[in-house]
């Protein structure tokens, strides 16, 4: 479960302050897929950064697995990110000069996974994104869709509990984008991990369990389009 409580993030000093997040609170249950929607500059990326501990807002709490990651030491947050979370970015950020194998190996190395275990994990994951035959190819030789699949492989190789995707299909055409979406939702459903997608694409957002609309740093609405009416408890509620 991810609990966000009263998170406020401001940039700048004194007269020039800009509030990127204004007292944002919500709860995401385990295994949910969440879309954070909003226009550019609405604060949706800042929210993702705060939820993943990349950014550290001065006010509020982000509680994951019962721990407030905003109060953790940098070392603990790093360890947390390397073992429990992962990221996918709009512009892939795969290492062009490295082979697909080495790209996927990076998070395992960072998380101190023993050398002997890595090969199997990497090959299994590459097979899952259908890139096993490209194992030794350099990332720069891949197409855009392949690069994002490689990024997905890198993100899921260490079995994270939370997967953050920042506009994962923003640089892809609809066909290749769909493949990547299927991979993300497939991982979300099959492992019961939480998927947080930052997007402004309503079609992609439609596929998520929960949609959080952000406007000017505030939550405009939280909707659950697929929620069955007889659900025993609300999966998420807006806290004011």
């Amino acid at each position: 479960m991810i609990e966000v409580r009263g998170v406020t993030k401001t940039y700048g000093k004194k007269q020039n302050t800009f509030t990127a997040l204004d007292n944002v609170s919500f709860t995401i249950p385990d295994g949910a897929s969440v879309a954070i929607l909003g226009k550019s500059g609405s604060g949706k990326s800042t929210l993702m950064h705060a939820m993943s501990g990349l950014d550290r807002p001065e006010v509020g709490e982000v509680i994951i697995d019962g721990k407030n990651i905003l109060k953790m030491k940098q070392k603990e947050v790093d360890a947390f990110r390397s073992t429990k979370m992962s990221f996918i970015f709009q512009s892939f950020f795969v290492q062009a000069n490295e082979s697909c194998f080495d790209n996927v190996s990076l998070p395992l190395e960072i998380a101190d996974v023993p050398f002997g275990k890595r090969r199997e994990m990497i090959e299994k994951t590459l097979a899952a994104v259908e890139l096993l035959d490209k194992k030794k190819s350099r990332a720069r030789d891949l197409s855009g869709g392949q690069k994002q699949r490689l990024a997905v492989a890198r993100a899921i190789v260490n079995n994270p509990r939370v997967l953050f995707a920042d506009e994962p299909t923003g640089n892809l055409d609809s066909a290749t984008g769909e493949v990547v979406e299927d991979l993300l939702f497939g991982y979300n459903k099959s492992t019961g991990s939480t998927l947080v997608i930052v997007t402004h694409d309503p079609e992609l957002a439609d596929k998520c369990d929960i949609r959080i609309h952000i406007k000017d740093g505030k939550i405009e609405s939280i909707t659950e389009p697929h929620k069955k009416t007889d659900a025993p408890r609300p999966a998420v509620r807006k806290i004011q």
Partner: protein
Amino acid sequence: MKIQDTIRRAGRSLRQAKARTLLTSLAIGVGAFTITLAFAAGAGGRAYAEDIVSSNTNVREIYVQPKQDAQNDPSKPKEYSEDPTISFGGGFTAKLMKQSDIDKIAKIDGVESTTPQYTVTIKYVTRSGQKKYTANVESFNASVKQEYAAGNSNNLTKDQVIIPDSFREALGFASANDAIGQTIQIVADKGGMAMPESQSFDYKIAGVVKPSALAVSASSGILLHKDAALELYNYTQQGTPLFGNYYGVLVTAKENVDVKDLKERINSQGSYDAQTAEDLMSFIFQFINVLQGILLGFGALAVLTSIFGIINTQYISVLERTQQIGLMKALGMRRRDVGRLFRYEAAWVGFLGGVIGSGLAIGAGFIGNPLISDALNLGKTHLLIFDPLTVTAVILGLMLVSVGAGMLPARKAAKLDPIEALRTE
């Protein structure tokens, strides 16, 4: 992140910028080349000097002189002393060793033998039908290595002589073999006589000494048996006031006795100034060390210059890889590990530079050694000696220097804000 993974990633990053890595390491390689050569020349020079020392002197020998007065100001009158002295004029004097001093030293524990040092002043050396030549006459010392063109010094007797090859030629022998067994005359003045009186002494040539690259002076004099030399000395000095007093005495230590300890024991016995062979030859080592120091200085200068090259390259590398650093930090890589990655890259550059530089230096030594030995007529002696330990130490040292140089860029990389870094497009 595990160390070996960091090292591997650092190496891989460098391979991706091959030209830049190579150029940066070449800069440090120039330093490595010079430093390795400096150490090789120093080691070779010292080994060569040790050869000279051991071929000209016996390491078990200690040369003892009386301690000269500290107050030796020629402008002031000096108190008279019963001790024998010689004066050089202008008020400068030197004390001499008495026979009683020599007897005292001979009794010190660890002393095998004592040989008083004197110079035999002869008039000339000649042979029938040849010109007369002045010459130094020394008493033969078996511990000084000699190379013989003909004959040898085995069983040298009182009536035999060993001459250098230059005298063989001057005295008109066609070859060294022709000279063996022939007779030469040494003519000397009798000492203590009012009227000059000379006598001629005959010696048979037992050996002809080759000119040696290693010898400083040993082969330039005419060598006589110890007793023959003493006889000549007595002939020329008896009756003069300084007879029986010597400039110094050569003490030979017993085997397995530490020469330095014995030197201390001799000095503690009285007002003596004892010097080991090593002390006497120390000027050579000093000279070599100064030369090595100068070369090392040049090497250090080259390394200093290359430090700025490394800092510059690494800064550019950090800028180029902002995104990569951001991604690694987003994936949970710790500051410490990011800094380490860049420091290891710098270490790789230092390693590469060290290996290239010292490799070239060893190659240069391989080619240069025979040429140098040929040019200086050193025979099989090599002036450049590469000690694997020194070379390893040079490489390790340069790696450390590189890591030091990579510190600032590594800090910059470690401090990068991942959000900012990932925003860079």
